[in-house]
């Protein structure tokens, strides 16, 4: 390995990394991708329950929300639900349109071709009937069948004058490019063993391998190296046996997530970057966002088997842009998701009841539906990932320490979302039993290396290029200036696709 030279080195192989690796290797580049997590064989490991979520080694400050992700080839998407929303046009202009947050240096129109490209590659399923989205072309695949629970939800929403629409999914609704359609086994969260969920290990990673990309699991990047002029020269990494190596490239693309990127940048010090990489603005690690995530459960008169199917049915985005006088900025998406399952997990983790009260609830388990709330949280400079002053990882580096606290804004938003969920479900026929809670974790950590045109107020530019480190790009969820109110996977992939396209264009020219 010593002395090996690559056209590009990609750190991480999740939503962003996999897209970049596929694109660059597809363009004939010699690409090395280094992934700290393991490589799962979906057809064996997921079917046999061998896949384990490896913790990131994050330290959480007391009272902090506990965002987390997964280390794996394919990243957190290996275990994600498959919800595949585009951001809305106004999400890119929240300062201008809503007077809060920051405008992105990228517009929806600039990103739209890359949204489409990723959707086509992934075989996204959906319907272009969501009136809150910009008019768009048809999805590559039709929406999934609507479950009985989603039908109740849609009926209630329509009764209140709202606009339910099929939730876009990166799960195949019909066979597509050699992969089978979904069997609705509801195992998406444990890793799709069928092959219909378009997570990177089923789509971009196999394609990148065919292109000749060198993808290495269980390889941890220790530092990004720079020379005396401050330019990137490669990375130092540790292989699965703990042996250290250096790989050379004048282009390093960081796709390690909002939680891990800051630590790597801060510990990558060089003669021209004594404070670490991207340190000029002082914003590396700052403005961590996690969404307002929560659940609402309701119960209907007949069996709906809400534990079967997929984690996205019907959504409502009528309060996506907020609600007047409601005490919060921006808004949220509500969508029908899967029930916590198996029932033992629901009874144990979610409920505190015992006795007849518990049994009464559990006996109606198959009549329940669960809604997911994804709300836009505001970017606060006090929410951040910083190096822990005391705790070190196995390589002697400070462990990332997360500080994230919600404000009244986020709590008001959640309260409004629950009220909307309640009204919709009751209008759809639900009885007065309900269960809801705001999540104290999040699989959507965003921000920490924000994108912007002003080098003093952002870490990377509109293309993901680090303002003050030549040859260093970042293109995952960490570059989000605002969080929007939809699941981030598709936008992360589209941003990565756009950055890769830019790099290829520049090299060609």
């Amino acid at each position, binding site marked *: 390995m010593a002395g090996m030279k690559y056209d590009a080195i990609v750190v991480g192989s999740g939503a962003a990394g996999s897209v970049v690796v596929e694109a660059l290797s597809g363009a004939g580049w010699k690409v090395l991708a280094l992934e700290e997590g393991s490589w799962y064989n979906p*057809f064996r490991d997921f079917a046999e329950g061998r896949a384990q979520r490896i913790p990131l080694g994050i330290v959480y400050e007391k009272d902090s929300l506990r965002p987390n992700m997964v280390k794996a080839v394919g990243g957190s998407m290996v275990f994600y639900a498959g919800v595949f929303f585009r951001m809305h046009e106004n999400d890119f202009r929240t300062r201008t349109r809503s007077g809060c947050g920051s405008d992105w240096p990228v517009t929806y129109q600039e990103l739209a071709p890359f949204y489409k490209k990723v959707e086509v590659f992934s075989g996204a399923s959906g319907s272009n009937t969501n009136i809150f989205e910009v008019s768009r072309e048809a999805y590559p695949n039709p929406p999934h069948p609507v479950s009985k629970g989603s039908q109740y939800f849609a009926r209630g929403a329509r009764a209140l004058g709202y606009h339910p629409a099929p939730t876009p999914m990166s799960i195949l609704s019909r066979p597509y490019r050699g992969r089978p359609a979904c069997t609705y086994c509801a195992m998406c969260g444990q890793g799709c063993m069928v092959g219909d969920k378009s997570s990177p290990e089923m789509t971009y990673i196999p394609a990148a*391998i065919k292109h000749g990309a060198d993808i290495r699991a269980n390889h941890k990047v220790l530092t990004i190296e720079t020379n005396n002029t401050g330019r990137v020269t490669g990375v130092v990494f540790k292989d699965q046996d703990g042996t250290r190596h250096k790989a050379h490239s004048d282009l390093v693309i960081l796709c390690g997530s909002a939680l891990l990127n800051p630590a790597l940048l801060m510990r990558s010090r060089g003669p021209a970057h004594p404070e670490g990489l991207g340190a000029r603005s002082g914003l590396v690690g700052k403005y961590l966002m996690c969404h307002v995530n929560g659940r609402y459960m309701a119960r209907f008169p007949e069996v709906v*088997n809400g*534990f079967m199917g997929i984690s996205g049915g019907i959504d409502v985005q009528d309060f996506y842009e907020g609600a007047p006088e409601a005490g919060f900025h921006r808004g949220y998406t509500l969508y029908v998701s899967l029930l916590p399952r198996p*029932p033992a997990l*629901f009874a144990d983790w979610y409920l505190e009841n*015992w006795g007849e009260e518990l049994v009464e609830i559990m006996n109606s388990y198959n009549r329940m539906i669960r809604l997911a709330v994804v709300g836009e949280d505001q970017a606060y400079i006090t929410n951040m990932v910083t190096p822990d002053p005391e705790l070190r990882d196995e390589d002697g580096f400070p462990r990332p320490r997360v500080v994230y606290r919600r404000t009244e804004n986020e709590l008001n938003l959640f309260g409004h979302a629950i009220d909307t969920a309640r009204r919709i479900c009751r209008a759809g026929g639900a009885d007065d039993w309900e269960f809801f809670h705001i999540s104290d974790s999040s699989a959507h950590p965003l921000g920490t290396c924000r994108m912007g045109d002003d080098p003093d107020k952002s870490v990377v530019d509109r293309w993901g290029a680090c303002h003050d480190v030549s040859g260093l790009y970042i293109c995952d969820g960490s570059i989000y200036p605002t969080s929007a109110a939809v699941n981030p996977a598709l936008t992360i992939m589209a941003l990565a696709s756009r950055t890769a396209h830019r790099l290829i264009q520049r090299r060609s020219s």
Partner: protein
Amino acid sequence: MRRRVFISACGVALIGSLQGKSSKADMDELQILLALAEVVVPDKDPATWQSSTAADELVSRWRSLEDSRRNELKTALQMLESEAGNSFDGKKFISLNKKQRIALVSRLLDRSEDFASNFSTLRPLIVRSFYSSKLGFERTGYRSTTQFIGYPEHVELAEIWE
């Protein structure tokens, strides 16, 4: 008569599960645990916690606890026994009727932090046992969705993983 069936069922479970190691104290504690399970997840079939897939599951989970953890939890079971004796003329917890058991558990949860702390482990143990069992699936209408006949036709991508 029903109580005799209950003790007999527990005895069978214990003989099978604690063969060679069982003591009367172990058996008594298991009986109290199963009686507590009747309070935590009361089932329409009164024999559920005497002999069923749920009872088997609970005994199995109880046995697989680390000794130190199980010993901690035993103190909660002993508290139930002791409180039953004090409150109901020397009766054992397993001899109380349903209403008396519920009242006793509620009282201990209100008054004893130690009991409440151990109950926060015992409750999930019982709840998980019941709702992971075949009987629990039947009661909730849950159907496992992981039963695959075989792997799908997926040759092109599957080859990469071999």
